[in-house]
């Protein structure tokens, strides 16, 4: 009996160590397989060079620009939208309507990304093409609009959670002073939950940078450095998804691991900075 107990407890421990080692293994594998890149500072050259396979240059600078532009523009769309919606849910909207909206937003987090992409191709891309009469419509703008729709639900739920954390006496005080709902959100709730809002924003940035399908399906995947938001571009994630190199020893193939390493380091950085706020969503309950 004692022995069985022991081995079950051992199994719990092994499971946890195994899960931890996967985190390390993922990084280790990419570093080992991409190792030749680190010799002689080649890794940092890759970060600043263009992608010109004909000249033997496999820089991933265009993809870094692509990732940054799509996700940052996506955030510019999504942030005010999410702030408005969560204010609507928590305070400004009619109670019942706010609850319905929250249910819908929760449902939205369950919609598969590939479906956003699919509808985007056949609905949004033609609209952008007709509207701006520039290229195929598969561009940074279309991708970031869709990305904004994708990341908004997470942000809205996070924001409205932190809005609900404001102590009730604060809100009662506003009521007692005769303040209205708009004053409540502007002068009490927003300042109080500023940290929550920033955390939500950082988390959303991580989500936006890590997304593959939207960029892959909507942004057009051109490897040139984009000049405007109406140009097509390729993100780091889409670059990994697109390449099917036959030669696993080629430099072209190795650049995938450079993309992977950058994405890994970046999302780790985001996780660390969110943790330093100590505001991971599950820890605040």
């Amino acid at each position: 009996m004692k022995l069985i107990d022991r081995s079950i407890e051992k199994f719990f421990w092994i499971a946890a160590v195994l899960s931890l080692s996967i985190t390390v293994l993922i990084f280790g594998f990419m570093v080992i397989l991409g190792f030749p890149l680190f010799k002689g500072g080649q890794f940092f050259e890759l970060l600043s060079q263009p992608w010109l396979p004909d000249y033997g240059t496999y820089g991933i600078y265009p993809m870094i620009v692509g990732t940054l532009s799509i996700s940052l523009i996506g955030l510019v769309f999504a942030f005010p939208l999410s702030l408005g919606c969560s204010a609507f849910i928590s305070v400004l909207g009619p109670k019942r309507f706010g609850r319905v909206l929250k249910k819908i937003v929760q449902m939205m987090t369950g919609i598969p990304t590939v479906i956003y992409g699919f509808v985007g191709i056949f609905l949004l891309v033609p609209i952008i093409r007709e509207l701006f009469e520039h290229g195929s419509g598969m561009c940074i703008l279309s991708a970031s609009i869709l990305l904004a729709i994708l990341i908004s639900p997470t942000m809205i739920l996070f924001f409205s959670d932190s809005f609900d954390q404001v102590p009730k006496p604060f809100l009662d005080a506003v009521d007692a002073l005769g303040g209205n709902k708009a004053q409540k959100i502007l002068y009490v709730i927003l300042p109080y939950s500023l940290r929550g809002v920033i955390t939500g924003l950082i988390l959303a940035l991580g989500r936006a940078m890590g997304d593959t399908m939207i960029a892959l399906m909507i942004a057009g995947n051109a490897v040139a450095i984009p000049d405007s938001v109406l140009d097509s571009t390729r993100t780091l994630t889409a670059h990994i998804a697109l390449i099917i190199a036959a030669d696993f020893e080629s430099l072209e193939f190795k650049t995938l691991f450079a993309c992977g390493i950058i994405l890994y380091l970046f999302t780790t950085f985001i996780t660390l900075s969110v943790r330093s706020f100590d505001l991971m969503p599950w820890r605040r309950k």
Partner: protein
Amino acid sequence: MMNRVLEKGVTGFSWICAMVLLGTVSCIVGYLLIKGLGTINITLIFGETDPMDALFFRKQVFDGLFPAILGTFALVALSVSFAIPIGLAAGIYMAEYCRGIVKRVFSLFFDILAGIPSIVVGLFGFSVAIFLHNYFSSRIYPCLLISALSLAFLVLPYLIRTTQVSLENLPEDIRRTAPALGATKLQNIFHVLIPRSLSGIASGVILSIGRCAEDTAVIMLTGVVATAGVPKSVFSNYEALPFYIYYISSQYSNKQKLLSGYGAAIILLVICGLLFAIAFFIKHRLTYHVLYKP
């Protein structure tokens, strides 16, 4: 004066935001339904093959969604059966055994794992397959098993986290009663703590099933293909619904194919919506039990 304008503006702005969001969602779902609802029928799934023949694997289905649906189910079943034992066990360890600095280190690594983009996990699965192919057995290629394992890695942190949180949220008096009566720690965990937090754990499990079913980025690097038929073993290629949708959107040959893409999208949406609703229902029941029926 400025403040007055701002205060008025805020309310209007939040109404606009709510309407924009509702509008976009209804556009997306509505567009899909209008375009695709007409294509949903028995031929969409089974093609020209007789459904009974297909279900008992007597005949191959050539231009239907059947292999993709089956592939998705096989993939989800396989990866969840890898992830659940490990995820729950690690979650129990985190909540009941791990303390202090070790706990902080573990939870840091699980947070990092949860944040890794799915395509990077896919790249990892792909390189593991290549590695095994080169050094272990040349018969190993990206396949159903590799995809299922990679997806398991992807959902592992969610399972650990939901298990840990639902155990840790149990009230202290429930936690202490059984040991006070002489139960061992393990008896307490299996007979008291887990049954009490079952609904939280279950909704975490169902949400990770949903993630396995919808993920495209991981599987497109680890063995999914456009046409493979029903998967014969865990070492073969397979089809899956999300990849089919992606594939159709990028290279459809005729209108018929495109319409089947709409059909596939609706089916995937319904599957994910159902899973989500079930998880939501279970969670809701949990709060109901805790709050009103002690």
